[in-house]
């Protein structure tokens, strides 16, 4: 009887440890719960080209992450990319003429949305939109290269 109890105790301890490890892996190593707790509001921005922007990419202002991208879709009406992102509620005084640009962190890093504050007296709120003159598309390397190549070619033709 004593031995059975020891076996059961060891097994219980082992299973508990294993489950605790699983819990740790699913909650602590992944960054998916960073913005699940706080209050947020939703903003939509229209871009000509979003590059390789992905869901859950950070939205940052002055280098500080203040929100996350929640959806990247193609809008069939305006024929532009519609990016939906949420901003934490405590940052509720962002001017509504704020610029949104898709930037790249580092040389080969992942893409994120950088916000550049405008000067308006009214603020972004839930359901606000940032439209094309205030958005800047992702820089696509191929476009840059082809632009460079063709402009160089054009100069040659002129001479």
């Amino acid at each position, binding site marked *: 009887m004593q031995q059975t109890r020891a*076996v*059961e105790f*060891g*097994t219980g*301890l*082992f*299973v508990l*440890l*294993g*489950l605790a*490890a*699983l819990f*740790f*892996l*699913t909650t*602590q*190593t*992944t*960054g*998916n719960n*960073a913005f699940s707790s706080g209050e947020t509001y939703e903003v939509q921005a229209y871009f000509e080209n979003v590059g390789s922007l992905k869901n859950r990419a950070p939205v940052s202002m002055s280098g500080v992450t203040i929100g996350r991208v929640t959806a990247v879709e193609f809008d069939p009406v305006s024929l532009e990319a519609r990016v939906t992102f949420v901003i934490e509620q405590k940052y509720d005084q962002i001017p509504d003429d704020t610029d949104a640009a898709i930037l790249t962190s580092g040389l080969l890093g992942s893409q994120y949305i950088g916000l550049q504050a405008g000067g308006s007296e009214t603020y972004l709120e839930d359901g606000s939109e940032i439209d094309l003159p205030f958005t800047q598309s992702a820089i696509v390397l191929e476009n840059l290269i082809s632009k460079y190549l063709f402009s160089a070619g054009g100069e040659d033709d002129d001479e």
Partner: protein
Amino acid sequence: MFRELYYTFVEFLRTFGALQLFFLRLLSHSPYIIVRRFGLVVHQVHNAGALSLVIIMVCGLFVGGVLGLQGYSNLSKFNAEDAVGAVAALGLIKELGPVITALLFSGRAGTALASEIGLMKATDQLSAMEMMAISPMQRVLVPRFLGGVISMPLLAAVFTVVGLFGAHLVGVTLLGVDAGAFWAQMQNAVEPGDVYEGIIKSTVFGVVASLLAVWEGYNAIPTAEGVGRATTRTVVITAISILILDFMITAISI
């Protein structure tokens, strides 16, 4: 010569088919054992899991530590030492955790299962059970199989977490990477899908390793030499199957 090749091929197919049927039989008996005789399974979880814990944790600590060292020495060439957390976590969660745990599990628990069952067969204990109208399938094989299946994902999770702390120990405590950057980079890089991939892998490996160990033991030639050979075959076949399956699962999930 072709005749021999042909017979070898037929024999291989026959063994492979018999293994599948054996697996189905194990599965068909499993619900009954889980509901009615769970105590037997608990005992085997203790044998296969709780007793493997020490080797798993020691190995995990050092594998994580070596990832921290290697990651640091290579990443510091690009001034990216902070990413050592991300490198170690992705490596441990997706690959090293499930695979090394499965190999250790096969060496520590699989061999024990195979030789135990093989010796039971060699000393006619299995036949004796049948004489007493006790199904060795239900009394001996299924609890051992289920014990392995339950233990393996838990062991892999423990291995991974201990490995992460090993990497933290080397990277942060010894080499001076910033602790905040270590965990932040990790949380940026690791996605929930990566963790699920690791869990799926360790579950599949648990089924395969336990199945092969029980199968080899049950089909051992009932002599001292036969039991020894069954034990060896368990490790060899399990290692090969796990590494092939690992490649296949990774190829699917990418």
